[in-house]
């Protein structure tokens, strides 16, 4: 195979690769602003200048094809001088308002200024002034002075979303970014430009000024906005989720996420007014907070009063595999065969980039975990029918606001003698419920979900609960949690008293005289991997950060390029 030598290190490359790509694949980082692995080459920032032996002039690593035997120096005197000169040039008109800028702390320009520039400017004249605080669209704010004209944002809209919305206008040092006349930066993926913008020129209007990046903890998770299951990072400060950003996974979402997933999948978790803290029992017309223990007992005692065919268990495509599996297991043990979950399809949601019509994160997993009618059991539509007929009197429902999305079910649920619900927030379904358990949201617990292609991926606790997850082993989630005392106004706040659904189920099962012993979510997953062929041999460690595909019937990883 052909090789090139970068700074004395011999590396192999595939033909057609540029120097910067070959270097990246081999873990060598050549500084760059405008180049992005998923965008076309623009070659305008000139920071990636490198020296190539026997070439008279320096070349830009992003646009120069690697050739066999090429010898590249990224740190020779000539290359270093050129890079310093380019940095000084880029910084000429940069406002240096880092204390105000949201990008500070994760800014490429800041980073390179420390690493590669001389630390002083010879430019004594007045800097160019441009418009600051220009809303380009509903989600993105633009600061003209900070822009270094790398054109990444323009290329993103043109090439990835294929909706040209941004362009350069003016020339020289007056060049700036605008939206095309009559257009806004309002595509479904607009917030990705705030990630790829190497400086703080494009910022997330929802997150603006909420926190400095170093004050938040990040946790690797998966978006629950639809069945794509984009890999994400959850950013938390003072136990509140402040933003969600995409995490690179070539097999799922590449570098991107849609705006819906970023903005609409965490606010309900923060919302103290609507969160369910603890357990509630309906007395008269209102829900009264109850001790967890007495709510478990009450749920079990009430369940025992009915015949098995008067009861239906409903799982959820929003809950994890572990939660669904346990529900199915308890249903089977208890003798309930009316078992199903509701699918949520929104034909208007999907597109051919990332978004899928199935707007739940785990319908694949719910099915795999065994949420389906047992022998002589009924499926959801029939369950609703039977409730209306008075044949089914009890529903045990996991984390799904069915009453909101299915008016027919709402009507039927109102007729139930007993409705037990696990839910993160109060909603239409909990209004009808007789017993409510406060369930931990996806950002508060361990578990797995399976995306539409059959990729098993992990979620992890990013937010602390009143009862800490045992798998954390006492480890705190953020600096504030770690050092705060009850006397500090910044710590130990916004802590909700909710439990993962599998814990609640386990405790209810105990009252039903069905003893289960799981300490952590992985215990359940390990049991699943023994009992379900598709998950054979998997554990949380193997799933890792990027997940793995489930196996098909002959125990091969599920087809395709997963």
């Amino acid at each position, binding site marked *: 195979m052909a090789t090139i030598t970068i700074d004395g290190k011999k590396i192999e490359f595939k033909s057609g690769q540029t120097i910067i790509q070959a270097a990246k694949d081999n873990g060598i980082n050549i500084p760059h602003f405008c180049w992005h692995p998923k965008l076309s080459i623009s070659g305008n920032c000139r920071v990636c200048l490198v020296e190539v032996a026997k070439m008279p002039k320096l070349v830009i690593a992003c646009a120069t094809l690697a050739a066999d035997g090429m010898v590249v120096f990224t740190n020779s005197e000539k290359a270093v001088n050129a890079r310093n000169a380019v940095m000084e040039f880029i910084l000429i008109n940069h406002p240096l308002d880092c*204390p105000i800028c949201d990008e500070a702390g994760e800014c490429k320009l800041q980073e390179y200024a420390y690493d590669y520039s001389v630390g002083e400017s010879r430019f004594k004249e007045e800097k160019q002034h441009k418009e600051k605080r220009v809303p380009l669209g509903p989600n993105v704010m633009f600061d003209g002075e900070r822009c270094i004209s790398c054109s990444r944002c323009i290329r993103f809209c043109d090439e990835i979303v294929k909706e040209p919305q941004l362009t350069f206008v003016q020339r020289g040092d007056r060049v700036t970014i605008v939206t095309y006349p009559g257009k806004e930066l309002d595509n479904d993926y607009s917030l990705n430009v705030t990630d790829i913008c190497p400086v703080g020129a494009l910022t997330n209007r929802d997150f603006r000024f909420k*926190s400095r990046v170093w*004050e938040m903890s990040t946790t690797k998770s998966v978006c629950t906005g639809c069945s794509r299951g984009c890999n994400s990072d959850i950013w938390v400060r003072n136990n509140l989720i402040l933003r969600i950003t995409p995490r690179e996974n070539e097999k799922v979402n590449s570098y991107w996420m849609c705006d819906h997933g970023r903005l609409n999948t965490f606010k309900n978790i923060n919302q103290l007014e609507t969160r369910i803290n603890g357990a509630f029992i309906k007395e008269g017309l209102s829900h009264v907070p109850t001790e967890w223990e007495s709510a478990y007992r009450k749920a079990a005692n009430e369940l025992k009063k009915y015949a098995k065919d008067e009861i239906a268990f409903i799982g959820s495509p929003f809950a994890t595999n572990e939660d669904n599996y346990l529900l199915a297991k308890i249903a089977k043990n208890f003798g309930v065969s009316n078992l199903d979950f509701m699918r949520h399809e929104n034909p208007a949601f999907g597109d051919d980039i990332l978004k899928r019509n199935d707007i739940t994160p785990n319908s694949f997993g719910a099915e795999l975990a065994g949420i389906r009618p047992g022998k002589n059991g009924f499926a959801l539509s029939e369950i609703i029918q039977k409730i209306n007929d008075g044949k089914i009197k009890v529903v045990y429902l996991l984390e799904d606001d069915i009453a909101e999305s299915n008016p027919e079910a709402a009507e039927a649920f109102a007729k139930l003698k007993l409705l037990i619900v696990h839910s993160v927030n109060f909603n239409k379904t909990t209004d009808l419920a007789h017993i409510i358990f406060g369930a931990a949201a996806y950002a508060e617990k361990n578990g797995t979900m399976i995306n539409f292609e059959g990729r098993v991926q992990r979620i992890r606790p990013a937010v602390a609960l009143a009862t800490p997850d045992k798998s954390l082993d006492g480890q705190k989630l953020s600096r504030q949690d770690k050092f705060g005392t009850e006397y500090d106004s910044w710590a130990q706040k916004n802590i909700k008293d909710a439990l993962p659904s599998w814990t609640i189920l386990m405790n209810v099962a105990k009252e039903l005289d069905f003893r289960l012993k799981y300490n952590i979510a992985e215990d359940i997953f390990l049991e699943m991997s023994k009992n379900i062929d598709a998950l054979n041999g998997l554990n949380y460690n193997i799933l890792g950060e990027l997940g793995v595909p489930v196996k098909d019937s002959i125990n091969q990883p599920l087809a395709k390029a997963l």
Partner: protein
Amino acid sequence: MAVKKRTKDLTFWQKIYLPEIAKGLALTFKNMVKPKYTIEYPEDKFIPPPSYRGRPVLVMEADGEERCVACGLCARVCPPLAIEVQASETEKEKERYPVKFEINMLRCIFCGFCEEVCPEEAIVMSKDYELAFTSREEAIYGKDKLLTPIDQLNDRIEFLRKYK
């Protein structure tokens, strides 16, 4: 162990003590007539020099605005995590300001790091050393107690410009 002989024995004059007593008394009398350093606090207040590090305060400009842009660097550098800043957006040109700025005076160790790190010269060490509270809540100083008019802080700011 061998007994060590004293390197220097007392001289005859030292041995008879009297001259030494006279020397000591001379020092005592000398100090009796020297100017006094003790201050009758709290009737008389000690006014420290500009190099003194009293409690950290926020600089309030002449127009009643804080200088702070809520960059959070002081909160980050503060060794005992005494500072909490919450930023927000303002319509003013500087875009960003602290909606909440609190220093927990029970945590503060008067190290002056916050003042040193501040890029806006917005937090400085004052001359205020009179800190007494009767509850933990009271020890958390908010913007109301922290904001101090700039003319009270000029000598510290000058000192910083010279020596920082």
